[in-house]
């Protein structure tokens, strides 16, 4: 790969759920302001991997994360790291859209409020508007900002969640199968959004859809049984992968 700036790097990353090991010695370097797709069969560890990047695995009691995770060269897998500040920097969008049971405005405003990013109501209004604009949702909701976020369609809800993630100015956005619950048009809108967002944010996307990975990402990593088998430019992976298992997976010869 070209000599681009590395935003996230994991070395010898091993993750255990109790006695069961989920990730084995994962070494990856993810480039800044690029979209990296992680593909692989179910249960191969892709979601576990990205949840390490914002320490969401801390929520699960029996989960143990060993190894080095560095963001901008700073180690985050150690005790004295402020997890809440980390999550301000590394945002996450989930598979099923999960807007808060609040108004659209309050959904977006919640993050800036708890992190103290706005000095007054005007600032907050500006943040809400710009986040919704960046998520390509502003035009559709600008007249109903105080209606509940749960009243939107699935695709709109997911864009709302993306806007909510952007509102606190992260540097990295992690997406865990963001389109799997959406219809094709909504999916296409999100993919267009990802194209735009990569100019500002580093994006890591876990997806079950090979064609989506091929469409949106610049780099792709193939996970299999907790190991990263191949990591390369997306073009290479989908035209001529080095690893036979990778090829078998993307052509549908094994699941």
């Amino acid at each position, binding site marked *: 790969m070209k000599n681009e700036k590395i935003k996230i790097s994991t070395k010898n990353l091993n993750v255990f759920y109790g006695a069961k090991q989920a990730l084995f010695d994962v070494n990856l370097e993810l480039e800044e302001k690029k979209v990296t797709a992680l593909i692989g069969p179910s249960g191969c560890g892709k979601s576990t991997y990205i949840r390490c990047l914002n320490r969401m695995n801390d929520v699960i009691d029996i989960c143990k994360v060993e190894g080095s995770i560095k963001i901008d060269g700073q180690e985050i897998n150690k005790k004295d790291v402020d997890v809440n500040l980390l999550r301000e920097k590394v945002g996450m969008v989930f598979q099923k859209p999960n807007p808060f049971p609040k108004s659209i405005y309050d959904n977006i405003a919640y993050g800036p409020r708890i992190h103290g990013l706005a000095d007054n109501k005007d600032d907050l209004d500006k943040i809400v508007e710009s986040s919704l604009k960046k998520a390509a949702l502003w035009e559709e909701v600008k007249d109903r900002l105080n209606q509940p976020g749960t009243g939107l369609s699935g695709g709109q809800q997911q864009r709302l969640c993306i806007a909510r993630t952007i509102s606190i100015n992260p540097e990295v956005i992690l997406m865990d199968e963001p389109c799997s619950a959406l219809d094709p048009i909504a999916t296409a809108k999100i993919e267009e959004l990802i194209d735009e967002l990569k100019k500002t944010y580093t994006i890591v996307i876990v997806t079950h859809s090979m064609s989506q990975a091929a469409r949106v990402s610049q780099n792709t990593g193939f996970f299999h049984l907790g190991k990263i088998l191949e990591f390369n430019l997306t073009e290479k992976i*989908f*035209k*001529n992968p080095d690893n036979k298992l990778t*090829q078998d997976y*993307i*052509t549908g010869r094994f699941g």
Partner: protein
Amino acid sequence: MSEHIVSSYEGQLKTLHSTVLKMGALCENQFSNSIIALVKKDEELVDKVIGKDERIDELEKKIDDQVVNLITLRQPMAIDLRETVSAMRIAAELERIGDLAKNIAKRVKHVKVDLNNGNFSLIKSASDLVQGNLKKTLDSYSKNDEKLALSVWSSDKEVDVIINKLLEDLLNHMKNEKKNIESLTHLLFIAKNIERIGDHSTNICEYVHFLIKGEDIKGDRPKG
């Protein structure tokens, strides 16, 4: 390689592969028959060859349709994509080979000289060599043998050498036997056709290599 989980997908790829092979076999036949017709001056064979060319065109159209269907409906990736794209390219080359064979057959009635004597043995040698290369090329596609394809690709030089000799020979004949100039001119064209069939075979070898290795053959084609 293991099979696709969806067996109809596997079936479609296999059908594509065998259609290309069928077309290839037909082209091989056409070429060898055209040379036999030339040497034996067999008019019936000539008509047969000319008539059969339509079938080759049909097969090319069929392969094109299969390819477009595969891309639309299956969105093939990696090796499947290379298979699909290569089949289309190879079919195009085979169609040209078929046309060239038909062209040779058309010229048979205009060649009035006897080719069985030693003066025109080079034509036979050249066509034998190219026929052999074409067969090896199609074998390499059938068996996924990129080494075989590479060897044929490298031996294009020999074809160039023998064709150059043949052309020189014919030109000499033309200078000395002015009465046979019509026949000899046609023989000149036939020699060029044989050379071009060889070139198309070499193209097919390049596609077979890309299909199997996923990258182009490195280096320039050796020329004689």
